[in-house]
């Protein structure tokens, strides 16, 4: 059990290694390994959640070296929630990929597993440079998954995505260098401890270092004006990849959350989000809403919906406070799971429609229209925040938690109107996809495997799960927000003797 927090990284890593070793074998081997890996991941995620739900913060010292010198993995409520969300998405995404996509290029399964390893590592690590490394792991895996399958759109969007992220990595490194060069440590808990005692003369560089990290995380989160790449990239990716990417942007949100929890009570981190984050977050919502209206393909529409949710999450982050973060932490798994399901649905629709793909154009009636339209209805209602599904509950929480200030009410207006417009856009899309029929068009001849359907069905399970589990999830989210705000449990678990007891030397 002491290794538990590491398993979400080690299991997929081991799976990827085995897959590479068996790369000449029939693809069923890779699938089998992947299935076993996901089974292990699911079990690990559940155990982690159960452990975290007790309020304990479990620390693993890699290599048996104590923090802040060695790298530690820290499983608290937030990390467990993120790992569980990732695992939940991975299952249907993998299943969808096993419908034949995984055989259409090279190394799908190793990339998929390493994507999971990278994500989980980013969520669990308690060391900032190790976070950088896991960012790179998840990014390189995402590059592979994004361009998987080839084609002009993927190549172009992939190039933009990769270059932007490489530029982001450079910023990350400079930020980390500056942070180490001023605070002399890389462990997040230790950083938090050091921030409290930064000499006045060093506040400016430390604060700038934090700002650089914030900029990097905002890029990953696809916050405007750094998020234009997202719809092109996610819209171009194959459906299973895109589904997995739904959790990718949340890494940025997660990191911002972590950073704000660790750093923003200190002089260098004070009010670092104010006054710019809220306007940008709301602008993200507005532009993404426009994108939903403007979309000409379902996948692009879903990508904009994802962007929209990022804006909402960022706005919640900007407002801060336990209730707002509690709302955020319910909304985050909701939007991630539902967006992933929508990507799978878009992929399924594209598969059964054949030539017209998921384009929002009139076409021949698609096979399986009945249940696909029902799936669309469920997911559309959930994603646009209409009652009675999780989107409504999440939005309700965000609205309730918004403060009774002008900014709070602006947030109401933006959230409500954006959800409304999104619902109209989705209704229009549904109308075109399912109801308009082109009598002249030949019926789709593409044969779509059953794996995609099964994956979608599985992903649809998120909808009732998020509603029926709303009460426990909401309670968990609130406790997570409180744990983040308290900060002390995390710090004490990582550095039992406190940051002040760490041996340091003055340089140069």
């Amino acid at each position: 059990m002491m290794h538990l927090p590491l398993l979400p990284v080690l299991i997929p890593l081991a799976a990827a290694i085995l897959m590479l070793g068996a790369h000449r074998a029939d693809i069923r081997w890779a699938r089998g390994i992947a299935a076993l890996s996901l089974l292990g991941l699911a079990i690990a995620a559940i155990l982690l959640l159960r452990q975290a739900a007790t309020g304990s913060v479990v620390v693993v010292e890699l290599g048996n070296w104590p923090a802040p010198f060695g790298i530690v993995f820290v499983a608290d409520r937030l990390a467990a929630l993120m790992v569980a969300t990732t695992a939940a998405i991975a299952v249907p995404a993998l299943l969808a990929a096993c419908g034949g996509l995984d055989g259409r290029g090279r190394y799908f399964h190793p990339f998929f597993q390493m994507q999971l390893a990278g994500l989980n590592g980013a969520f669990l690590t308690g060391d900032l440079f190790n976070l950088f490394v896991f960012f790179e792991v998840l990014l390189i895996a995402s590059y592979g998954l994004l361009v998987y399958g080839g084609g002009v759109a993927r190549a172009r969007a992939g190039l933009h995505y990769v270059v932007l992220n490489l530029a982001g990595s450079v910023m990350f490194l400079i930020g980390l260098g500056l942070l180490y060069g001023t605070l002399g440590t890389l462990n997040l808990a230790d950083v938090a401890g050091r921030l409290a005692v930064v000499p006045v003369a060093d506040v400016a560089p430390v604060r700038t270092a934090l700002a650089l990290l914030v900029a990097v995380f905002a890029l990953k989160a696809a916050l405007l004006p750094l998020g234009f790449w997202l719809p092109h990239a996610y819209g171009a990716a194959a459906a299973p990849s895109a589904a997995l990417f739904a959790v990718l942007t949340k890494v940025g949100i997660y990191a911002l959350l972590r950073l704000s929890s660790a750093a923003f009570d200190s002089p260098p981190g004070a009010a670092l989000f104010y006054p710019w984050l809220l306007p940008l977050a709301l602008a993200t919502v507005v532009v993404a809403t426009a994108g939903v209206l403007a979309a000409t393909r379902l996948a692009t529409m879903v990508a904009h919906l994802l962007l929209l949710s990022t804006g909402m999450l960022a706005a919640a982050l900007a407002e801060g406070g336990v209730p707002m973060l509690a709302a955020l932490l319910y909304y985050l798994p909701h939007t991630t799971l539902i967006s992933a399901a929508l990507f799978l649905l878009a992929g399924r629709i594209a598969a059964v429609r054949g030539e017209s793909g998921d384009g929002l154009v009139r076409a021949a009636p698609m096979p399986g229209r009945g249940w696909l339209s029902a799936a669309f209805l469920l997911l559309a209602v959930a994603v646009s925040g209409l009652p009675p599904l999780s989107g409504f509950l999440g939005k309700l929480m965000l609205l309730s938690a918004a403060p009774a200030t002008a900014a709070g009410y602006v947030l109401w207006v933006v959230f409500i109107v954006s959800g409304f417009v999104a619902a109209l856009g989705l209704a229009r899309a549904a109308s075109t996809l399912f109801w308009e029929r082109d009598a002249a068009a030949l019926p789709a001849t593409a044969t779509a495997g059953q794996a995609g359907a099964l994956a979608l069905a599985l992903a649809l399970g998120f909808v009732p799960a998020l509603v029926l589990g709303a009460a426990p999830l909401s309670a968990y989210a609130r406790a997570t927000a409180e744990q983040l705000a308290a900060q002390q449990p995390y710090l004490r678990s990582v550095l039992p003797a406190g940051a002040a007891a760490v041996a340091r030397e003055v340089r140069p």
Partner: protein
Amino acid sequence: MEALLATGIGTLVAAGLWLILQARSFSVVLGLTLLSYGANLFIFAAGRLAPVAAPLALPGAARLADALPQALVLTAIVISFGMTAYLVALALRAMAETGTDHVDGREDGP
């Protein structure tokens, strides 16, 4: 010495930025390479410049250079090498798909 190193880092970053702002994939690769150099030197500089010995914990060794930033830079160099390799492959793929080495995939791109 500090000003010189800072100037060097700044020049690398400026040249790298100039290059990635050019619209050709090859220039972007070059620019990212220069940017990585700049970032690596920056992290390296976080250990400060001091007339000290290489970080070898030999018997009787006196003041050693800060090994931690060096280890970080090593990791960063390796990762950036991998990323460069990938980017080069992607640039070729994009060239094959779009018929141009313009990063926006269209010759008339902005």
